[in-house]
């Protein structure tokens, strides 16, 4: 007699694979920027690869949401806005260092460029705030709140550890914006774990 009610074997969602590829390319880009590992044109190609990988990542995340059930209009808008913020962020961070070299140190234009580089990151935070205010599905809102808190916890623990080791000269300095990608990874992992647990 066939066994009924047996859960299907676990299969890693396609979005996970794209996430791993995207994070690996991002990490390579940051390492290259810090250590100057690649020569032209590989240096520029790596930036293009990060941008290109962002597209299947966003599409796979959205498709996965659709497969798991009806997607609320607020979630669709959130995915689109977040995708745009990510794309803007990577584009500005790819272009800005080259532009900055042509600007006089401490000039108003350099300040504007630095603030422009931070703008998509801040916009991404605002997109999350708007999503939480607009989402009418309680389960989706709970999922976002809990994964946001988990992402924040990962950031606070990681920055405390790294900052302290940095202060004592045991690890290299890291730019202050790195908590944001750490937050995104922490949030994504927590969201996937919460979803898997609720099944």
């Amino acid at each position, binding site marked *: 007699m066939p066994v009924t009610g047996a859960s299907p074997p676990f299969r890693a969602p396609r979005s996970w694979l794209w996430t791993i590829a995207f994070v690996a390319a991002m990490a390579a880009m940051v390492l290259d920027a810090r250590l100057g590992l690649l020569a032209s044109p590989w240096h520029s190609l790596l930036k293009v690869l990060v941008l290109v990988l962002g597209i299947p990542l966003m599409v796979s995340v959205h498709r996965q949401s659709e497969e798991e059930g009806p997607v609320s209009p607020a979630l669709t808008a959130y995915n689109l806005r977040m995708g745009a913020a990510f794309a803007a962020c990577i584009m500005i961070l790819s272009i*800005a*260092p080259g532009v*900055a070299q042509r600007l006089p*140190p*401490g000039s108003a234009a*350099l*300040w504007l*460029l*630095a*603030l422009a*580089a*931070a703008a998509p*990151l*801040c916009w991404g*935070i605002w997109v*999350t*705030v708007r999503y*939480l205010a607009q989402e009418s599905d309680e389960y989706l809102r709970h999922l976002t*709140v809990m994964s*946001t*808190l988990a*992402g*924040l*916890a990962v*950031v*606070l*623990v*990681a*920055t*405390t*550890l*790294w*900052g*302290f*080791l*940095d*202060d*004592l000269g*045991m690890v290299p*300095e*890291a*730019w*202050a*914006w*790195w*908590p*944001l990608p750490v*937050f995104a990874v922490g949030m994504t992992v927590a969201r996937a774990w919460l979803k898997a647990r609720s099944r």
Partner: protein
Amino acid sequence: MAPTPWTPVRRRYLVRTLAATMVYVAGVVGARYLISTVGVSQPVAVAVALVPGLAMAAMFINTISMIGATKDEFMRMLAVRQQLIAAGIALAGASVWGSLEMFGLAPHVDAFYIVVLWAVGLFAGQLANRVTHGVWGQCP
């Protein structure tokens, strides 16, 4: 009888937060002394440096457990809102400072200062709760 803000949930949260803060401060001071003054070996230095990070993790687990233990939905919403506002302020601050630092417009700051921003954000979250909902966020 007048309602008191010192419910068991609130009391437990404050006591645990205070304990974690003391461990954090002791960890920072102790590690700095042991590593910079005494000059302990590398593995011991790393182990000692982990203490403030673990204290931070304990502080956050305590916050999550307080939110879970708060029965009143309105008060739980206020606690979550406060944390989200703090997260937004901390991450936005880190993004702006990081960009300024990247272009040599601001000096390098150690990453753990984001915790200070988060603490400021917690106060801003409480203030926002007071302004928009009329309460600071005391547990019922």
